């Protein structure tokens, strides 16, 4: 699949950062607003698929190697499991939220009732959102990229 015209490439370059910011906002605010790791990752992967359609699979495959995508996906899954096992180590049970109440990061316990939402809360949940977001971004973009690249090779035969 070759790239599209110059108009499409220019509009894609303008719109792409806004889609990235929206998706990363959904991931980072997963414990406060609707959405989370999976939804924000799906939005970011949609933006990457737009780049793939506009610039062609050969150009994108030259920028990104599929082996790096596989490594990043494994890093996302391993970070999720390691955070869960750290709950077993520092706390009592698997998936124990051991960061709540500590002063390290994301440790503030909000007061009871309806308050202004603070991003520095919820313990280990934002870190798990980041891990799931990384895995979903790389996984969904890898599916589309490999499929486009394989169909391009078939056209040349």
């Amino acid at each position, binding site marked *: *699949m070759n790239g599209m015209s110059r108009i499409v490439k220019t509009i894609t370059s303008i719109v792409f950062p806004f889609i990235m910011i929206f998706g990363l906002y*959904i991931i980072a605010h997963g414990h406060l607003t*609707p*959405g*989370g790791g*999976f*939804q924000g990752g*799906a*939005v970011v*992967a*949609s933006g990457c*698929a737009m780049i*793939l*359609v506009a610039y062609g699979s050969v150009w994108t495959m030259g920028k990104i190697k599929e082996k790096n995508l596989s490594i990043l996906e494994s890093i996302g899954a391993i970070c999720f499991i390691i955070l869960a096992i750290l709950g077993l180590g520092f706390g009592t049970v698997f998936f124990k939220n051991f960061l709540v109440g500590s002063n390290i990061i994301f440790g503030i316990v909000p007061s009871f009732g309806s308050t202004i939402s603070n991003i520095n809360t919820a313990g280990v949940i934002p870190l798990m959102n980041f891990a799931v977001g990384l895995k979903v971004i790389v996984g*969904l973009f890898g*599916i*589309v990229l490999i*499929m*486009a690249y394989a*169909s391009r090779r*078939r*056209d040349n035969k």
Partner: protein
Amino acid sequence: MILDIIHILLPLLIIGSSLFAVLLKDLIAAAIAVAAMSLLLSLEFFILQAPDVAIAEAGIGACLTTAILVIAIKSTKRMEDEK
């Protein structure tokens, strides 16, 4: 009142676009009809007050599924066989 009209109108549009997706012989047009059905379904989720499901449906159903379907159709035939 307006919300009641939207609640009646949106399922009818979803059923209509699903019928187009089944009946069309041009497979690219059928894929676009599936994308339109998914977008209307995400709007229906939003007015039923499930915004996170709406975000997931709009990202997965309307964008990535359409991309995969169009890539798959480009490497095979475009028109469905008449029998």
